[in-house]
Structure formats: structure tokens, C-alpha cells
């Protein structure tokens, strides 16, 4: 638990009293038993490593309902980010997110502009989307590139 608690956005795990208000509020939890924010924190506190929690942590919608309702300010929604970041450090990223991130670094946009989009922009008299080189620079500096792996 130390690791998560000490990561940015991970402190929440220490204030949790397992009341379950987050789980009772979570839209995902109502659809699948797989994801349960309260249990996720309990697992973290029990010392489960990201390997065990990787899949779960990516089921969070970041709708932040849990953050709004948590009486302890434990911010599960943030803890989830912390878990993902820890996993990502060792290069563990779901395809979807990886694609977005890569596209962002390369083109400056999460979703790379498709041909049709460019056509429309032209039609509407908008300038074409330019790639943004500075993004790659920043990514290099923060270690984001390492996470994204070889081009």
C-alpha cells in the first residue's frame, strides 16, 4: 500500500473506511461485479500489486461520482489514476489508451484526423490540423515516451 499511498493522487487509500458509498454510486459497478471501487481500495491496502488490479483499474469511467460522494475525501477516482500510472511505468497500457497517447504525441491529437475530417475542414474553410512537435519534446522529458515504447 505504501507505493500507491505515496504516488501522486494515491493518498486516498489511507483515508478510506470501506463504507461502500462509492460502490453504491458507481455506474460500472451496477453493470458488472468485476469492478467495485471500494473493493479496489481494500485490495490495494491488502498489498495486492498492480498486476492484480490492472484490468480493474481501467474499468473506471472517471465520471467522478465517487469523488463527489465519498465522506472521507478518499477520492477513489484519483486513486485509479495513480494505479494506472504505476502500471504504465512498466509499460502496461491497454491498446485503446496506448493508441490515443501515441496519436497525441505524433499528431498533437488524441484521435488522429482522418482524411474525411480534413476534407470537411477544407470545405468549411478551416486550416488543416498541424502536428505539434512540442508535445513530443514534453513527452520525452516526462518519460511518457518510454511508456509508449518504440515508435
Amino acid at each position: 500500500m505504501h507505493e500507491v499511498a505515496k504516488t501522486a493522487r494515491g493518498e486516498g487509500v489511507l483515508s478510506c473506511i470501506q463504507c461502500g458509498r462509492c460502490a453504491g454510486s458507481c455506474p460500472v459497478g451496477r453493470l458488472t461485479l468485476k469492478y467495485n471501487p471500494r473493493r479496489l481500495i481494500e485490495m490495494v491496502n491488502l498489498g495486492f500489486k498492480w498486476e492484480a488490479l490492472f484490468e480493474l483499474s481501467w474499468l473506471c469511467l472517471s465520471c467522478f461520482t465517487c469523488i463527489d460522494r465519498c465522506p472521507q475525501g478518499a477520492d477513489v477516482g484519483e486513486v485509479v489514476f495513480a494505479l494506472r500510472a504505476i502500471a504504465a511505468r512498466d509499460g502496461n497500457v491497454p491498446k485503446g489508451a496506448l493508441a490515443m497517447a501515441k496519436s497525441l504525441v505524433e499528431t498533437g491529437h488524441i484521435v488522429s484526423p482522418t482524411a474525411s475530417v480534413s476534407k470537411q475542414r477544407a470545405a468549411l474553410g478551416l486550416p488543416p490540423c498541424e502536428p505539434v512537435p512540442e508535445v513530443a519534446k514534453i513527452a520525452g522529458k516526462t518519460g511518457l515516451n518510454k511508456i509508449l515504447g518504440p515508435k
Partner: protein
Amino acid sequence: MTALEEPRIGVFVCHCGINIGGVVNVPEVVDYAKTLPNVAWAEGNLYTCSEAGLTSIKESIKKNGLNRVIVASCTPRTHEPLFRSTCEEAGLNKYLFEMANIREQCSWVHSHEPEEATVKAKDIVRMAVARAKWLEPQDEPEVDVSDSAMVIGGGISGLTTAVNLANQGFKVHLVEKEPQLGGLARRLGKIYPTLQDSSEIIDPLIKTATSNKNVQTYTSATLKDISGYVGNFKVTFRKGAEDVKLDVGTIVLASGALNYEPPKGSFQYGVLDRVVTQLQLEEMLTHGKLAEPERVLMIQCVGSRTGEVWTYELSDMTQSFAARLLSKILGAKKEEGWPYCSKICCMNAIKNAIRIKELWPKAHVDILFSDLRTYKEYEDFYRKARALEVKFIRYIREIPPEITEAPNKKLKVTAYDTLAGVETEFLCDLVALSTPLCPSKEDVMLARMLKVPLGPDGFFMEAHPKLRPVDCQSDGIFIAGTACGPKDIPESIISAKAAAARASILMANKRLKTEALTADVNTDLCIGCGLCEELCPYGAHKIESGKSKTIAALCRGCGVCAADCPRRAITMRHYSDRQILAQVEAMMAH
């Protein structure tokens, strides 16, 4: 004998809001009462016990020249004193008041059959009237109250009471069975939540107590006998070789509680040497007997909250869990220990967890609990522990943690975390069992000596759990601290001061009226057989020159003597055969 004057009875029937009025037809009962012999006045009140009701009683005593008053309402246990003193204020002897309980014994139990309830209410009133006719004025003998007190037990509570009473100017005899003062708190290293040394509290307290000229302390003293009555108790205890005899006005019970020892084998206690009680762990910490551990695990509610049954919907459980749970429940044998919650264990565990964390930040501390009861502002204490990364794991009693030996002096604890739904193993150096405070065997002897009852939980029982929490049912005896149930130190100190307050009232007033309900021996009929002397549980009968004599102050009015007297020579004041029989006849006459 007949009443002094022609009885003029007033009947006041209470609606008690809808408590009675909602079921019993009160106006009907009032009209019925008017028809009864000797009833000079009858009326209904919304709340007879309200100021309006009482004023109306007083007024109609004067207006209608009443010499008997009946209130048909609730139980005498709570309201008789009030109505009696109302009569007194109107110049009527309070024993000329009679109460008819048409709430607990009628409207509440027959809430669904109003007609029958009304009939029964009439019967009850009729019986009361019949008895009232024969009521006689009684006067209550006054006794002197000695202004010295005995405090039993020299722990924090006893010391606190003693100091307070002494400062109020009363003489206090502090009797402790151990060779030194201080009690259980001595064994505590630190006090939650302030984490100050317990000695910071106890030592000054002992000093002030022993240095106070009004306090006489007796250590290694064992009580042998307590007789007498409120204001005039006679105490005998053994100190060293000789017996000490004391006369005291009041007694404060501060005999404390024990720390429960788990039976050998429960959670491997007494089998594996690294399984200890929370208190033992505390002593290890205090005396530096604990080497830096990698992991310490604590188990809550060991020997407390036994006999709980939790209900689970099996449908919600994983197969394996359900199966496991069932096998456990089927295989479960009666838990040893106490059914109550000992209240202080959660904070104690957290306290020691924090101490360990502060000594050795690297050490892990896990607390297995079933409900974490850090009530009051102790919630912050719980939060502090979490911030220090003390881990709290909720187990369920049906699947208690299992402890086995592991290589290199470790203990392997297998626990099922209900909140995660996983079974986890902990390799730890020490397992501490949080055991409850529990009553000691001596309490039974003490209770018998003082003629006070013990509650179902084995602790001394208070006169009323809500409104008289430090009074005993017998007058002049008070309870302080954990003798009455688990308390932490501030709570013990509060109850100790409260007990002092109650005792001081008696002693400050110097004189006290006692009950008039005592046995009255008709010496013409008495043959001096001595049966009463033999039977009386309070030693209130003595045979003097061939006749039985009652010592009024000792008599509790239980009536054993009157019932058994072969010559019917004994009458109970205010409960004469005549009165009772009149009631019975009235009941039949319907």
C-alpha cells in the same frame, strides 16, 4: 381496626395522552368510580402528573375534604413518590395515597381490545378503592446518617471518589485488596487518545488521596462482612493479622473489573508463546520486552460479543465461500467468553498499534476487527492509525482467523477479509488478542455481602440504567467505574465523581427518613418461636424475652416473616392482610 374517620376517597384517572386514553374509555371509568363506595370525588386528567393535574389533586383534597387519594395511571415505580408528596403538600399523610396501574397493566397490554380494557380498568380502580378504604397514615422513622464513607477498591475510580468526598469534608475509608493502590490502570503503559503515561494520572491521584487527612487507606485488606443499613453500615475486613471494624454512612463500590484471560487453545493462546493478550503486549511495550517486529497482528473481540448470529444471503456468496461458511457454522462450538461489547478494546488496540508504528515505522501492524467501534472523537484516533498505515481487516466471526506455527519463530495467520472477499496470509512475529474487561468472581461474594444484584452480564446492576446509573438498588450504596461495566479512564472518573455526588447528598443531610413499610409484631399473639428471626434475610427480627422484636431500620418490608408466622402475629405496615383481602374481594365481586 377501622379507619380513623369515614373515608372520603378521590379518584384521578389519567389519559396519559393517548397512552391510556387512546384505549381505555377514561370518562366511562371516571363515571364508574363515582358510583363506588366512599368515593367523594372523581375526575379525568390529560396528564395527572403534569403540574395542572397535581394542582387539581391538591385543590380537590381541600375542596372536597378528601382523606384518601387514588391516581389511576401508570406504575408506582416512577410516579408514586411524586403523587405522595403532592398529597403531603395538601396536608394528607402520603400513605393515604394509592395508585392503580391502568397503563402497563391495562392499556399497553390490551391496546387492541378497548372495550375489555375499559372493563379491566374499572376492575383495577374498584380494587384500589377497596384497599384505599383501609389505608392508614404511617410515619417514617428517621435515622442518623454517619458522615463517613467506605470506598471499596483503590483503582482510579475509588481514588477519585475518595478524593472528592474527602475534599467535601467527609471521612473516607479506602479499602483495597491488593498491596498497592492504582488498580488495573497501573498495568496500562499509556492512555488513549493522548498517549500520555498512565502514571501521569494515577501517581498524583494516589498522592492526593494518601496525603489527604480525611482519607484513611487500607491496602491488602479483605472484606469479611457488611451489615447495617443506609447511614449506619457496619463493615468488617481483615488487614494483616487483625480484623478492622468500621461504622460508615455510605458505601461506594469501586471494585473494578478484570482483564479476560482466553481459555488455553483459543487462537492458540497458551499454546504458542507468541500469542498474547493486548494487555500483555502493552506490558511488553512498556517494559521494552518487545524486539523490533516485522509484523504484529491483533485480533479484536476475543472473548467478547460471543453468541452473535449474522445473517447472510447465500445467494450473494461465491460457492466456495458459502461452503466454507456453512462448514464453519456447522462445526462451530459454543464460544467461550462474554456476550457484551467491552467498548475499550478497539481504542486500546489502535493505541498499541500506534505505539509500535512510532517505535518502529517499518513494522507492519494489522488489526482484525468485526466492527470498529472508535466512537466519540476516537474516530480521529482511528484516522491517525490509518495515516500511519496500520491495516484494518474485517473478519467475520463464522470464519475466525487461524493461527499456525511457521518457520523461524514466525506465526502464520490465515484470515478471510470479507471486504475484499479474499483469504490472506500474514507471517507475523506476535499475535495480540484483544480481550474484554470482565467481572471478577469476588463480585458475587461482594454482591451477597451488600445484598445488591448483579446484572445478566455479571457486572453490578444500577438502580435504573438511564436515570440512576451510579445508584444501587439498596439505599446508601453507590457504584463507580468498571464495577458496573466496561469504561475507559475518563468515563470511570466521571462515574466516580457522580457516585461521590450521590453519596455526599446523603451524608450532608445527616438525617434520613426510612421506609414505613416494616413488619409490626402483635406481641399478644407472638409465641416467640423464632421462625421470623430465622427467615429474615436482613436480620431485622430479634427474639427478646420470648417475643419477636423488629428493628425497623433493617426491615426491608419483604414480608417473608408475615407470610410464615404460624400465629399470624406479624402484619406488614401499609400491606395489611385486611387491605390485600379487600382488594381480592373487590376483584371477585363483579
